[in-house]
């Protein structure tokens, strides 16, 4: 077959272009650290990468949101424990009054303290975090209880569904927490009055009502604690999930630098060989021999 210099040159130029292009792409991969430079290089991997990327971002976002949101149930938990302490002190006061050995002055002091405790419980119930009431249900901008202990919030729990299985409460219904089993503010008000007038007969029933209310508060606290633990477990799960997703995404989109470096070297050798062949082969005609 006749191989005129024009055909030879075309072949050589094509070979140089192919090798240069391959080298250029490898250089681009090394430079950017990315395996996929354009969607058309691997459409399936790109579609998969977009899914992982979205899942990773959501998982990291959920983790961050969980971190911020857990502050609400944690604050409520602390407040409820404080509430239990207040109730325990109220219980002690009632027990002291019940043994019937106190003077009317001492009883008046107990009544004063009882009123103080009621105010303390009201303060706890009306606590706000970040400008939002913790015990007003979904009416987060409303003060849950007025001075008289009347509930003004919502009975609906404000909650965030961190996952299809975990819903974190952001604000509980104050009516359910503090007045669910017994109206604790009412009980304390009655106790204060009974102490003030020295009505010892009312005390046993008030004591048992206080006990029931306290037991309810403890139950709520226990449930809240369980929800917090659930949230923490979810947070750990999300961190783990993010690591797994990061790994999967990395396999799809990140360049393996060692592999690319070797590929680069091989392609560089191929290009050099082509250039050398071009330089050596093209000038070989009878013209030089004749000269």
């Amino acid at each position, binding site marked *: 077959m006749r*191989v005129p210099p*024009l055909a030879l040159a075309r072949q050589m130029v094509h070979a140089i272009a192919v090798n240069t292009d391959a080298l250029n792409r490898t250089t681009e991969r090394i430079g950017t650290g990315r395996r996929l430079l354009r969607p058309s290089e691997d459409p399936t991997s790109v579609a998969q990468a977009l*899914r992982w990327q979205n899942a990773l971002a959501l998982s990291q976002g959920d983790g961050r949101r969980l971190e911020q949101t857990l502050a609400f149930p944690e604050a409520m938990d602390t407040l409820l424990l404080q509430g239990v302490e207040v109730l325990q002190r109220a219980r002690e006061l009632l027990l002291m009054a019940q043994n019937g050995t106190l003077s009317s002055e001492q009883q008046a002091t107990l009544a004063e303290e009882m009123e103080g405790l009621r105010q303390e419980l009201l303060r706890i119930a009306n606590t706000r975090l970040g400008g939002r009431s913790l015990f007003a249900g979904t009416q987060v*901008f409303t003060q849950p209880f007025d001075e008289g202990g009347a509930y003004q919030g919502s009975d609906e729990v404000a909650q965030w569904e961190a996952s299809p299985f975990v819903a974190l409460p952001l604000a509980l219904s104050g009516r359910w927490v503090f007045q669910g089993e017994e109206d604790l503010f009412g009980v304390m008000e009655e106790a204060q009055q009974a102490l003030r007038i020295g009505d010892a007969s009312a005390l046993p029933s008030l004591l048992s009502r206080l006990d029931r209310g306290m037991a309810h508060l403890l139950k709520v606290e226990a449930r809240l604690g369980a929800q917090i633990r659930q949230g923490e477990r979810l947070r750990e799960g999300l961190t783990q999930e993010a690591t797994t997703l990061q790994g999967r995404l990395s396999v799809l989109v990140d360049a393996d630098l060692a592999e690319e470096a070797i590929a680069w070297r091989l392609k560089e050798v191929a290009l050099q060989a082509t250039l050398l062949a071009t330089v050596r082969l093209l000038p070989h005609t009878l013209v030089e021999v004749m000269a």
Partner: protein
Amino acid sequence: MSLMVALRTALQSLLSHQAALMVTAHNTANAQNPTYSRQVARLQAAPFPWPLPEGGDGEGTGVRVAEIGRQHDALLEALLRTSGGQVAYWKTLRESLERVEEGVQEPSAGSLADSLTAFFQAWRDVASEPGNEGARATLLEQAQGLLEQASALRKHLLQEQRLVVLQAEQEVEELNRLLAQVAQKNGEIAAARAAESWPNDGLDARDALLRGIAERLSIQVHPQPNGTVLVMAAGQELVAGTRPRTVRLLREGEGALQFVLEDTGEPLQVGEGRLGALMDLAREALAEFAQGLERWLEGLLRTVNALHTRGYGLEGSTGLPFFVQEGQGWRVNPELWAQPERIAASETGAPGDGHIAAAIGRLAEEEPGPLQGYTAWVGRVAGRVRATRTTSEALEEVHRSLSNRRDAVSGVSLDEEMVDLMRFQQAYNAAARVLQAVDQLLSTLLQRL
């Protein structure tokens, strides 16, 4: 044979080999000309003039150049035209689709998929803290960002559609120029044939012009006895003899393109080639991508709006759409920009409720959902680019191989030319030597007289 005839024979040889040397020089000069076909001086023994003069014995009278021909394969040339048209078709498709792909930029930070996730993240942030003004302001920013990204991609597609029309206009102009030039070459070649000369360079130039036409549309070339060619496209004459026809570009609605013959207004069947690719791009690929993106975006925005209008803002407002249509595009409801508290995150109207925001946030994971819709769109673009690139590369390989075969037949080999140079030079020297010998014979005779 008389000495005078011998003298003439030597002279014939000198002239013929001089002509052959000229052809070799022409070949050598065009060794790097890709459209050139090697020319060959065909030498033929010159017979003794008939009827034989008295005493003549019918011996030859030397050599003459019977023809200066081209080394040319018409079948290969036709194959090259077809394959050139196919390569041009797929290359045009590929270049345009690759430009579209450059605007997609997936997967990367700051891409549309990224903005879409960020948009849903912002809704989730609002869901986790419905009363947080900061989260609401961020949501509005992210929504605006998403719309801007989608709009940039839409503009990119629109720009490509405009580019296709512009390219079609230029290609039609070039096609008309080529058709006119073929007609002109037809005239020159017919005149040269009539004058019994060899218009080899004209034939090469016309072949190159025909290849140029074939790159733009599918043609059939019919050689005529007078040396001209009849150029047809799907049964319609484009060039007959020295008469070219003109092609015109018609723009139909929605960016579709149509090519017609200027004189009759008949639509032209362009087949493969650049014009076919541009027509297909305008009618199918680009229109399909633009509509796909439009449908996806509208679906997403309407889904968000449907949920949002059901919800309540912090101050109790309801029934507000999150996105509103403005002319051809969409924007975030200006009422929400003015009062972010009107973003309807709540399902019940209670400010601590974030169920609507959570429902919109959950769209991010829904299957089939907005992300899947967008991923499928990217997949369609990427798949099309990949398939086009593969076909284009395969056809380019075929074309290269055909070009090499053409060069193997028609290309100039300097080695061959150098050998010919030596051959003809030697023949020329030999003829000169014969001339010298006859001259000596004549001198001998003259000295004796």
